[in-house]
């Protein structure tokens, strides 16, 4: 999918640039962009390493596992049919890592959870309810502290770099609730349809 979006985005811009005669500007923007990407990553590296170090400590000392256990009732609510505790703990770990801003650990757990869900789904071509719920809810989950955003704000001399933390948390929790509601509604619609088919 990324394949089409990425190349599509590029080609559409290219053709528009050709039509408007802004091809030279387009060309130099492309060359500059790779340079700016490198500069950006260099600025980002320190904070990334620090956070990743703290996450490693939290993970290896069992702090994340403990919090995951605390959240067990919540996940039972989201995945009522899910009996497999290892799948559930992968799901919770992914949520937790996400909240703590460790996007990559979250992805690792998420992929493990998806593999297990796929096996439960007998590798069918159609996604299971639990897969949809998990993917959508994990997407809506956001880091408690958006570190990169705060860093950018600090760099640009904001008076209150942390002032966006609370609104971001509220936004994320509301979209988590909304995504759960939509998911459950669509599940119900699908199962009603199945039911009618059987009759």
């Amino acid at each position, binding site marked *: 999918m990324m394949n089409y979006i990425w190349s599509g985005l590029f080609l559409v811009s290219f053709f528009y640039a050709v039509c408007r005669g802004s091809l030279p500007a387009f060309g130099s923007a492309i060359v500059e962009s790779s340079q700016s990407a490198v500069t950006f990553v260099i600025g980002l590296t320190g904070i990334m390493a620090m956070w990743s170090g703290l996450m490693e400590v939290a993970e290896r000392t069992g702090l994340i596992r403990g919090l995951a256990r605390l959240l067990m009732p919540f996940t039972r609510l989201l995945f009522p049919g899910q009996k497999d505790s290892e799948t559930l703990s992968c799901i919770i770990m992914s949520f937790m890592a996400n909240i703590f801003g460790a996007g990559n650990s979250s992805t690792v757990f998420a992929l493990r959870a998806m593999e297990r869900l796929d096996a439960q*789904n007998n590798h069918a071509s159609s996604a299971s309810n639990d897969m949809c719920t998990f993917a959508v809810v994990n997407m809506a989950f956001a880091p408690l502290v958006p570190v990169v955003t705060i860093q950018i704000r600090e760099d640009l001399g904001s008076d209150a770099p942390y002032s966006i933390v609370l*609104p971001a948390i509220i936004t994320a929790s509301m979209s988590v609730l909304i995504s759960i509601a939509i998911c459950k509604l669509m599940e119900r619609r699908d199962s009603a349809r199945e039911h009618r088919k059987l009759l």
Partner: protein
Amino acid sequence: MNTENFFETISAAFVPVMAAVILAYGLLRAAPVYDYFIEGAKKGLATAIEILPFLIGIYLAVNGLTASGLIPFLYRLLAPLLDFFEVPSQLLPLMLLRAVSGSGSFLLVRDILEEVGPDSYAGRAACVMTGGCETVIYVLALYFSVTRVTRLRHAFVCGMLAYLAGIAISLVIVRFI
């Protein structure tokens, strides 16, 4: 203490308090926290390098898009709608791009903040948007890549709806907090 200060204090305390809790908990369990930290930091460095090619790709597409003049054209199409909801025009590229790329949107946030200032309404809304909305298309592509699933069923629609809701909420909430 007024509410604004209160929230500011809570928000500012998050990172240091979290770091302190993590380290204190580790020490209580007699874990070699320093070694763990160094190991994790190494992984963080590796991650920074890992995302670089991805970033270059995204930056390429996004910068090309901006330089081509297509965004102002799109803006002219969408302007009545944005104006109706009193949405600052600088936020449009971010609203479109956030669904595709996390790292790319950070670059955009930086550009937006440089233009409008980090403490302006548009600047704060941009930050909340990146903090509270996820990269729907990227995540779906990645997650389902390890399965045999070809029909996503409601995952795509739900993801997009939640994403749009997140954008709307962030635009509203920044007016109050």
